[in-house]
Structures are given as C-alpha cells and as structure tokens.
C-alpha cells in the first residue's frame, strides 16, 4: 500500500460500508462479513470495531475502552489495531 494508514487522536474511524459486523451465535464471536469473505474477531478487536461508528474520535474510543478495561492503558494497542484495520480497508477515516 502506498497510502498512509496512521491514525491520530482526532481522527474519526468508521466501519467501511463494505463490511457487516455482527454477533454470530454458532461461532460465539463477532464476525465481519464482506463480499467473498468472513473474519472472526476476538473480543478486543470486536470491542474496538463496534466503537468505530463515525461519531467517536480515536481518543474517545480509547477513553471508552480504558473505562471498561481496568488493565494498563490500552491506547498503544488500539492505535496499532486501528492502523491495521485501516490498512486492511475494514475502516475508513473521517476527518
């Protein structure tokens, strides 16, 4: 990819309209469905992507997750995941 996939605190990530994110009972997991593919998400990935609603900034997503998960600050991991998701085309960034 030649594009820059970095995500900044003020960026507003939104799930790409090509992807459908939903709970799949038989898999006991969230899955992302798209043309010709399925991705099974682990709990953390699903928690982040569910917040990529085109309203919250990356900083707000991190604040939300920090309030729910009491372990160490999640920000580095969340930025890494958002950047990977952006590179894969799962999310788009609204500026």
């Amino acid at each position, binding site marked *: *990819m*030649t*594009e820059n996939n970095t995500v900044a605190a003020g960026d507003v990530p939104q799930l790409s*309209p*090509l992807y*459908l994110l939903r709970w*799949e009972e*038989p*898999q006991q997991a969230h*899955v992302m*469905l*798209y*043309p*010709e*593919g*399925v*991705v*099974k998400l682990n709990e953390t990935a699903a928690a982040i992507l569910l917040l990529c609603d085109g309203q919250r900034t990356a900083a707000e997503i991190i604040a939300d997750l920090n309030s729910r998960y009491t372990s160490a600050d999640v920000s580095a991991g969340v930025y890494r995941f958002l950047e990977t998701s952006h590179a894969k*085309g799962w999310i788009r960034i609204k500026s």
Partner: protein
Amino acid sequence: MPKAGSGLSLDGDRIPMWLVLELTYRCPLHCAWCNNPLDFDNYRNELSTEEWKRVLREARAMGSLQLGFSGGEPLLREDLEELVGEADRLGFYTNLITSGIGLSRERLQAMKAAGLKQIQLSLQSSDRAITDSLVGAKAFDAKLAAAREIKSHGFPMVLNVPICRQNIEQTEDILKLAEEIGVDYLEFANIQYYNWALLNRSEFLPTRDQIAMAEAAVARARERLGKRMTIYFVIPDYFDERPKACMNGWGAIHLTIAPDGSALPCQEARVIPGLEFPSVRDAPLAWIWHESPVFNEFRGDAWMKEPCRSCPEKEQDFGGCRCQAYLLTGNAANTDPVCAKSPEHHLVVDAVAEAAVPGRRRRPIVMRRRDSVNTMFMGCGG
C-alpha cells in the same frame, strides 16, 4: 473451485461456512467456459421455493454464513427475491452471482428491500464485440447497464472477469472501465479447465507472456488506485508449480446444492464417476454433510497417495483439486498434476506448451448449448 482471493479466517471446524445454491442451470448466455455439467440439460427437476427454503434453514442451523445465489442465471427464478428475503431473515450474508441479464431496476430494488448484501457481476471484456462473441449473445450493453444500476443502488460490487487468451490483453482497459463504474472488487478469474472450459482449453489458455503483461497492468493499477478498488489476479494454476488449495479441502467449508437438489462438495464434483451425490430431497443436510460417503470420500488425508501422503505441504493445498486430478489423470485420488511433484505434471506442461505454439491450427470453440457436446466431446480428449 475457490475464488481468487477468497478470504476465510474462520476456524471452520467442518462447518459448511460457504453455501452456494445453483438455483437453475437455465441461462440466456452460452459461455464456452461454463462450469455447469456438459449434460446440464438433463437436470431439469429444479427444487421448489419451499424446498430451497428448507435447505436455507438446515444450512443456517449448521452455521453456514456466506451464501451465493448462482446458476445458470439465478434471475431466471422468479422466486429469487423471496429466497433472498428468507436467507436474510435467517442471518446469511447474501451474494447474488449473476450475468446481469435480466437485472432490472425493479428487481434490484426488490432485492435491496429483501436484504441482499452484495452482487457479483460477470463481464468478459471491455469491448462490446468480444464480449458478445465470448458469451454467444448480445450481452455487453445489458451488462454495463446492470453494473451502473448495481452501483446506483449502493450495493458492494464484485466484477468478475473470466480471463482467457481472447481477453487477457485488454486487462488495462478492463481496469479503467471498472474504475469508471466504481467497482469495489475486481476479480480477474483465470478460467479453470473443467467441463466446457476443458473442451475448449487449447483455445482459451493464455501464454506466459500474456500473463506477465496482465500482471504488470494490475500492479500499476494497484499503485494508482490504492484502497479504492481491490484487485484480485491469480495466475491460472496450469502455470504454477503447486496446486491450488481447492475448496480449502473436500468437505471442509464448502457446500454446493445443484438445481435438482444434489449436494456437491464443489460445483464440478459431478465429473468424478462412481460418486453418489445425495439429494436434499431424500436426506437431512446435516447427514449429507457429516455422514454421507461422498462428503467423506476425500476428507482429511487418509485417501492420499504418494507424493501427497508424505508431502510437508499437504496441509496447505490438500493435494490440489480432485476433479482436476480425475479429468487429467483418470484417478481422482492422484496428486493434482498441476503440482511439479506429480509424476503426471507433464500433462499440464504439455497443454500449456501446445496452446502456445505459434501458427498452430485453431479449433472451433464449443459454446454452451444443449446437446452441443454429443459430437464434439470425442474429438477433444486432449
């Protein structure tokens, strides 16, 4: 026959994640690479609406997720919208796989309302005359109109271009056309040589030079387009040294139901003689998938012979394609001869070399029509 670039990151655990319903073998086109059986006209006993709905319920209960409505041309079923609606209610991700012929605005609106998630449209060339001659019908204008309607209704869209010698040099123009239409996924699906395509193999196989040029055009387009359009281009397996991981393994994640209700581990499986394909009319789908002899025939690796049995890569490619092994070597349990380790790899190498001989006599292309193979089949053994 897995699609190029099919992504599946689920630990399938023997769930038929991928369900394809071939609603009918009827089709207004006559594509000479059609993967329907050569004797498709003998399978006229199509499942009813209620029978298809029962298949959908049973498959969903087993965990099927991705659903393709295919054919033939699925739009020829007047109950398509009803089946899409039922599938959507059950929680499938619904895909329509169509030639675009008959895809009117009204039907698009009805399918959108019924919950259809995405549409895969086939296009054979950026050129009207070449498209129409390859499919044996005046189709180009209708396909292009369908493509634009699909995008105007906001569907994610895969444009599927079956690649052969006759259109591979238009790769650049096809890329531009797809970009202009606003295609989300462009799939250059190199023709795979089964059924009608195998009859016509010597005329369809591209040359290595053609493939290299097309790959270069794709690389330039990826550079230019970035994430705006995802482009799949996988070289035909005949030009490879290792076989494709066909269907991700026999009876692993893929289930096709033919128009007459026969359950198949892949669309082509009927070419293998001696296998009995149970019908959803006669047995529960769960029994067919888990217990029936045919779905267990090539599951796992107990059926493998050498060189597959001791091969360190057998978990990656499952020995390749059973149908191709049968069609080319006469035994479905042999290593797919695409593999350089196969003692019969020369069959593939020779076919590629023969097709590329300059100035050789061309054979007429056999179009997909009723009874058109009865006389031709005997002359096309090689």
